[in-house]
């Protein structure tokens, strides 16, 4: 180290880029050189100034990110809360699908008051102790989506719709603009209280595509993050039901007074299987009635 005062040395020292030996040597010099000490202090201040500046900048950036869902504290409570109650709020959404274009306003949506009531119900601990069967019956969160198709689409074979979430959007031109809704969803998902939950696949942001099918068989598949439904879904109303337990989210579809399970890992086209389990039907029914 020929020149101890060189900017490079000072920088390596201050940014911890010296080897242990270099550092030791440098510090020994530093101890007997007040000028070098001054210089070090100067650069330390400058570097700290730059770091503070950047930290503030990043914090401001985060501060400007709007975390969706209105009053987040209320939101947290909702998410933390368990039990059927959540069903009420997130229910009933009606919209009309016409060529991907017009979505009518939903008729009911959750208000902050409802959320608060909901939140008093239960702690997540009790949920964790529930076994699989029970968790189907007492989902931590549930959404009911209803769709009513105004008129049959003959020439369309591709109608897509997002599962609506939470707050009601105004009338929109394109579903593609529904980002907002998706982020509501993510927030709920992420705030389940226990960390492992955060990685649950976000079924609710699944896009739905309807393909009119020639056969009378009702079929479905998950492909490319989209849920494809094959059958006469355009002319009759169907509902996608989502049951979120602490373990996983499950999707069901209600169509022509029957309930069907939509397995999340169904990649190939498969027939819709009607649900026979009476308990499950009961809870899905409750969901729909809310």
């Amino acid at each position, binding site marked *: 180290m020929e020149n101890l005062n060189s900017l490079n040395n000072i920088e390596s020292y201050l940014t911890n880029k010296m080897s242990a030996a270099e550092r030791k040597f440098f510090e020994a010099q530093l101890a007997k050189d007040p000028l070098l000490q001054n210089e070090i202090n100067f650069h330390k201040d400058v570097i700290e100034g*730059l770091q503070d500046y950047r930290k503030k900048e990043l*914090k401001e950036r*985060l501060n400007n990110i709007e975390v969706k869902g209105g009053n*987040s504290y209320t939101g*947290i409570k909702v998410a*933390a809360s368990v039990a059927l109650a959540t069903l009420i709020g997130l229910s009933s959404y009606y919209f009309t699908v016409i060529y991907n274009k017009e979505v009518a306003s939903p008729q009911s949506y959750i208000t902050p008051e409802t959320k608060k009531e909901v939140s008093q119900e239960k702690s997540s601990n009790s949920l964790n102790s529930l076994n699989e069967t029970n968790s189907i019956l007492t989902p931590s969160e549930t959404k009911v989506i209803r769709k009513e198709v105004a008129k049959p689409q003959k020439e369309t074979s591709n109608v897509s719709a997002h599962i609506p979430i939470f707050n009601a959007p105004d009338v929109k031109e394109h579903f593609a603009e529904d980002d907002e809704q998706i982020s509501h969803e*993510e927030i709920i998902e*992420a*705030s389940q209280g226990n*960390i492992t939950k955060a990685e649950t696949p976000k079924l609710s942001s699944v896009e739905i595509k309807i393909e009119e099918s020639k056969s009378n068989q009702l079929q479905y598949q998950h492909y490319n993050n989209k849920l494809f439904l094959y059958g006469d879904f355009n002319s009759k109303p169907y509902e996608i039901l989502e049951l979120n337990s602490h373990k996983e989210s499950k999707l069901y579809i209600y169509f022509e007074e029957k309930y069907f399970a939509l397995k999340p890992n169904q990649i190939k086209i498969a027939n819709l299987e009607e649900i026979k389990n009476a308990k499950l039907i009961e809870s899905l029914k409750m969901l729909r009635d809310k």
Partner: protein
Amino acid sequence: MKDSEIIEKIKKGDETALDFLYKKNYKMMVKMIVKNNGSEDEAKDVYQDALIVIWQKIQGHDFTLTSKLSTFLYSICQNLWRKELERKARHSNEEVNKSEIFDIDKKERIEIINKCIDDMGDTCRKILTYYYFDNLSMNDIAEKMGFANADTAKTKKYKCKQELDKKIKSLYTASDFLD
């Protein structure tokens, strides 16, 4: 985005990954702090600090993730909040903490430094903050700033730093710090 993707992006200094992480874990972290006697504003503040800690840690050279990112973030949040609670408790008990009697010279020096940083050109400021705070490599800085290569970034960084030092020193002399 998967944890590994987020980490890759953060390593390159991509702030959008930070935004993503922020939104994704917001409720969980804020809830944890609110449950532990924090206000929502405090929670938000601590959570943001925790994210910035993660941001810097990931960019450190020897970073390896041993748990899920959200778990890691959660523990940092907890630690920061514990510290903050301790700090608050200390403050209500002791009246004046001796180490906190403020060094007026130092305060003035910091003001000068901050002013000079503010006055710097955008490019210089970005290079220097990316280098000193984000720990980005010269390669990453070059990429982020659209420079030809790492050498260009290195030269620019050196010049910018010298300029800044010079400016600060001249103002120091003006206000008579350096004898």
